[in-house]
């Protein structure tokens, strides 16, 4: 038995070569995005080449952490054992101000109160290895 290994409370995402900088930044609760310096567009999820032009002149920049709910579904059954104590919970696609879409949970309000177009901002949940998982909460600031 490993000693003082925290018990995961989430499915903890694996890290790939392409995405390592994204996950490293979450150790400091920083949301970072790739930008193609040719297209001048944000890229998500991280990859080795720009999905717009296949260029590899890509740099990492901090994201504002603000966005809006694009679509939402409240889950009444847990999709994996980690989520068993969280039902019902809201899974949403969020459009970040930078123009990319990601999947997340909306926390900080009742799941049924999450609405399409609601303004949200990033918040963080610790993972067992020092990384954090980006979640989102309602944000009056973004309105």
């Amino acid at each position, binding site marked *: 038995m490993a000693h003082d290994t925290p018990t995961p409370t989430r499915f903890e995402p694996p890290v*790939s070569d392409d995405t390592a900088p994204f996950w490293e930044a979450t150790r400091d609760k920083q949301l970072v995005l790739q930008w193609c310096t040719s297209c001048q567009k944000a890229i998500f*999820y991280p990859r080795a080449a720009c999905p717009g032009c296949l260029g590899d002149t890509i740099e990492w920049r901090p994201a504002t952490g603000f966005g809006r709910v694009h679509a939402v579904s409240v889950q009444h059954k847990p999709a994996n054992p980690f989520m068993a104590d969280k039902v019902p919970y809201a899974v949403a696609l969020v459009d970040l101000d930078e123009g990319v879409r990601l999947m997340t949970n909306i926390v900080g309000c009742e799941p049924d109160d999450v609405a399409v177009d609601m303004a949200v901002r990033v918040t963080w949940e610790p993972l067992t290895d020092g990384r954090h998982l980006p979640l989102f909460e309602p944000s009056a600031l973004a309105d």
Partner: protein
Amino acid sequence: MADRTLRGQAAIVGVADAASPTGELELTGRALEVTMIAEALADAGLTIADVDGLCYAGFGGMATLGLAEYLGISPRWTDGTNVGGSSYEVHVEHAAAAIAAGLCDVVVGVYASTPRSDRKRSSGGGGGGRRPMPFGPDPRMEFEMPYGLMMPMGAYALSASRHMHSFGTTSEQLAQIAVSTREWAAMNPSARYQDPITIDDVLSSPMQASPLHLLDCCLVTDGAGAFVMTSAERARDLAKPPVHVLGAATCHDHSGIMAMPDLTTTAGAISGPNAFAMAGIKAGDVDLLMGYDSFTITALLHLEDLGFCDKGEGGAFVEDGRTGPGGSLPMNTNGGGLSYTHPGMYGMFLLVEATRQLRGECGPRQVEGAEIAVAHGSGGVLSAMATVVLGTEATL
């Protein structure tokens, strides 16, 4: 491009399928596949010795090799495309092209899956329930899995959420699709569910992933099917009236739902019009739509993307029961994935029912005088669309 058309080059000449009101089948695996192939060949008046082309969307590498070896055939043309539930419509497109190019003469495609029986068998022995999570640079593992979206219905729920927001589509309208489909199922003795349901039944069934209720979701059943295709010329000498491939087209635009370009428009907006153009038809010419109904929202998107109504108007389009018996657009007359069967990849059953309808073999649920049918498959999570336009001899 007119000289590059597949229109009228190849035909479906044999079909078979298996499903049961219990949701379970006796046979499984290869035995079930072989039975389907044998039945489809018999339906066509052909034998396995005639087969020189093979389509198979098996999982794992080199799946077509194992099937051909088991069947004892040496296909000179093979297609192992697997894009999920629409694979079988893609196979028809590819097979028509191969036949038109003279690469092979007789193609067989098959599908069998028995998740319901499999679950029963594996739960008996205890243990081994949870599948190991694959580890790797998979965007869905990294950026979707941690958030607990119930799959696949959660992905469709997100699309439905956005459709409702953008167009005012209601849960009642989605429910009507399930209600109309069940009316068709009532006329299919093989359908898993045959008792009528109401909109209230759908809305009061347990919420799975909002806004989708249990009765907005397809079944999980055993099921299997097969098709046989050959050239239009040879088709005329076989046992049953040929069902001609008038048009076929494919398009896919994402893998995970996070990357779907527009949650309310599928790649069917490309495959549909392309297939219709090849066939030389308009939506109004279609007598029967077999439109993949993994969920009610799936079918609704197809209606819009294929041009049966404008984008956003699918809810109003289905409201008066237009897709049910007696309606102007019969849809999923076998009872669909919602009420007939859904073993995981449903596309095969679209082809089988469309073929039988065009041959006039469907008894009480027969669409009177059906000449043109569309089988429109959806694979992945609204990812891979494939449209096949089928017609009777008279439509050539």
